[in-house]
């Protein structure tokens, strides 16, 4: 559906996007993740044809953005970070204008606009001036604008930025629902958002792709959980020595005291062998009961930070 090959964008000396490659399948929801200034918006601007690339090609539904811009633009709905709204128009007039601009069939226009307004829940504000709407509603009008013409591909740049938690949840639900009919690329620098909505994540850092995978796989690959926290009742030093003696345990740290003679320990293992059973039997032998055992899985947040900082170290 979307093919990005060797895409590079230079602003004078600065390389904003450096040789990135990825493809998005039909019906997928893909998240662009990266710190501010990583090149997310630039990439989106190139895919939508707002900016030309310095090198490389972008193909949407088989059409090249530079050779057949019209065919590509017809198939893309774009919501930039700042929704492109005309403040002095009413919502209805504005969407009317966008329909004409996107050359929506005159006969279908009315019904389609009504559907879209219903879908993003702006029907009741349709006669109000855009400038008088709250940020959340402006964002929805921006989303409605992208949906006009029912494009196959939706590109949403930070769709939930500046919204309150309630609105964020609603917009996320909406995006998920839209994902059934549209191919979606959305960008964000907020992890939970991407992991909640997207089927695949592309992590961009300093204009380069750091990782592409599903949220689950990213957790598995980068966060092969080798750390446990264990709450054990028993004298601190002997428990610590016991744990250290178990094959596969690399490192033991006493985290905190919970009750008298009850401590939390953080156990770091090599990850090759499962140490949970040996720990249980060993402690049982000495009569130190395990009160709690948790794997410390890496959250996407940790993975993201890890990838981003690893890159820094390499550089």
């Amino acid at each position, binding site marked *: 559906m979307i093919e990005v090959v060797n895409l590079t964008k230079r*602003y*004078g000396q600065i390389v904003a996007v450096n040789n990135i490659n990825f493809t998005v399948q039909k019906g997928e929801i893909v998240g662009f993740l990266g710190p501010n200034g990583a090149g997310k918006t*630039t990439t989106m*601007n190139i895919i*939508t*044809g*707002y*900016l*030309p690339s310095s090198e490389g090609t972008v193909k949407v539904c088989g059409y090249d953005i530079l050779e057949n*811009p*019209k065919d590509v*633009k*017809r198939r*893309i709905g*774009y919501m*930039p970070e*700042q*929704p*492109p*709204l*005309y*403040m*002095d*128009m009413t919502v209805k*007039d504005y969407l009317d*204008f*966008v329909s*004409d*601009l*996107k*050359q929506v069939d005159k006969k279908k226009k009315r019904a389609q606009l009504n559907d879209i307004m219903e879908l993003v829940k702006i029907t009741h504000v349709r006669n109000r001036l855009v400038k008088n709407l709250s940020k959340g509603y402006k964002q929805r009008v921006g989303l409605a*604008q992208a949906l006009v013409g029912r494009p196959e591909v939706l590109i949403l740049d930070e769709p939930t930025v500046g919204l309150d938690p309630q609105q964020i949840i609603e917009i996320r639900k909406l995006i998920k629902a839209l994902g059934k009919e549209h191919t979606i690329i959305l960008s964000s620098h907020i992890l939970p958002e991407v992991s909640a909505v997207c089927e695949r994540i592309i992590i961009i850092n300093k204009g380069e792709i750091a990782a592409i995978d599903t949220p689950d796989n990213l957790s598995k690959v980068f966060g092969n959980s080798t750390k446990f926290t264990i709450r054990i009742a028993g004298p601190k030093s002997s428990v610590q020595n016991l744990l250290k003696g178990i094959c596969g345990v690399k490192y033991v740290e006493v985290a905190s005291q919970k009750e008298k003679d009850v401590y939390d320990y953080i156990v770091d293992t090599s990850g090759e062998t499962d140490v949970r059973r040996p720990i249980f039997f060993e402690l049982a032998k000495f009569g130190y009961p395990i009160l709690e055992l948790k794997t410390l899985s890496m959250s996407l947040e940790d993975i993201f930070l890890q990838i981003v900082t690893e890159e820094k170290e390499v550089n």
Partner: protein
Amino acid sequence: MFAIFKREFKGYFYSPMAYVLIGLYMLMSSFFFLGNLYDGNADFNGNLSTMGFLLLFIIPILTMRILAEDRKSGTEVLLITSPANITSIVVGKYLAALCVFLVMTAITFVYPIIIAIFGDPAYAQLIGGYVGYILLGASFIAVGVLASSLTESQVIAAVIGFVSMLTMWIMDYLASFVGGILAIVLNWLSLFSRYYDFNIGILNLAPVVYYISFISVFLFITIRVIERRRWSQG
């Protein structure tokens, strides 16, 4: 293109912009018309050239926001990522400003009508004068559109527009100082040396072609400016 034209034209009337400009223009031109009334003079063409001078102030304000505002408010993204190409965006916007100008001009018809009721004006000269006046205004709008494409700031766009129009106004005068090839080149840009003929009632094809090519060249440069900016930076 029609969608952009329609929105832009309506846009002038969503805001007080068109009303204020038209009102101001009518007020000022009616002062000049007072001369006709007091003196019982049926010659309106003198007024038309003074009104042409007024356009130096009115047109930059009319065109200042036309492209600059889209850039500032981010709506440029919507226009450029839509299937409409840049040519139709620029031409659509130009035509919208032109239509507001034509509405403004149509209202001034009230003066010659009053003259026609009470006097006996030279109709051919009047028509010639109006054709010249409209072509002059249309060329000014093209200059204003180009000025608006150069910057994000409406104020700067208005100032650039005003200064370039003023320069064109005194171009004959400048040309008379330098002489030689430079004078000829400067005369190419002189909108007014072509205007005088119209005002004495000569309807010649050459100046009409000149004005139309002037407009086309300025709109073409505007399109190139926008394209160039896309390719060079963000």
